[in-house]
């Protein structure tokens, strides 16, 4: 799970945010990737565009959205960001609404983030871990869960 921790750079974690739309939550997830030096601001727009084109399939599990675009010139380094929402938001997902957690993902290519995805999968597979993440109000505490 430590690879999830190291993928979440400084500035990438935004807890208990008030958002009113999927777009706002994507903007925050994108800002987290930018602030931690993993992407250029243009990647945020690419994530939003991807959602507009393909819709809420990015809501991959109950309450959890994986915001991402393609590997592109806007990605500087593979990384994650994490946004938890004070009030869950409807994304229009058939089975997994409302969303309480948005994970931003940037990958430099199609292969080098595979270990990270395996670690992320292990983490999110545990309802107990997800609940801990969702309830966290302090970044230091959340990071201690991940270490």
């Amino acid at each position, binding site marked *: 799970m430590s690879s999830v921790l190291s993928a979440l750079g400084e500035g990438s974690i935004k807890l208990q945010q008030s958002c009113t739309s999927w777009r706002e939550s994507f903007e925050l997830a994108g800002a987290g990737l930018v602030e931690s030096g993993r992407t250029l601001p243009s990647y945020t727009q690419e994530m939003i565009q991807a959602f507009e084109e393909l819709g809420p399939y990015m809501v991959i599990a109950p309450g959890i959205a994986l915001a991402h675009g393609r590997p592109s010139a806007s990605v500087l380094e593979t990384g994650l960001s994490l946004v938890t929402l004070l009030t869950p938001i409807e994304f229009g*997902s058939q089975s997994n609404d409302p969303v309480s957690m948005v994970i931003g993902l940037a990958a430099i290519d199609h292969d080098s*983030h595979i270990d990270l*995805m395996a670690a992320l*999968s292990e983490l999110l597979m545990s309802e107990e871990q997800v609940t801990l993440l969702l309830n966290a109000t302090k970044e230091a505490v959340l990071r201690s869960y991940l270490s």
Partner: protein
Amino acid sequence: MKILSVCGMGIGTSVLLKMNAEKVLEAMGIDAEVLAADITKAKRDGVGADIILTTPELVVLLEGMPGKIVSIDHVFDLTEIRQKLTAALL
């Protein structure tokens, strides 16, 4: 057996689906190759796939492809993946 896991961008959902499908298939003792792809790549290279794994919202974009489409609601739910793969393999 060839299985294609498909999502919009080819780096997120499809990778998670591939990993979790591999876990399930190994536990079931089924020898299968699972490839992750985005929609464009899936349409180009997906010929010959026995099963296409994806999420509900993308099913409509993959209709007409050869192979059975299996739609997974919750990509971390190994029980759901196992049940739906089993049904598709019967």
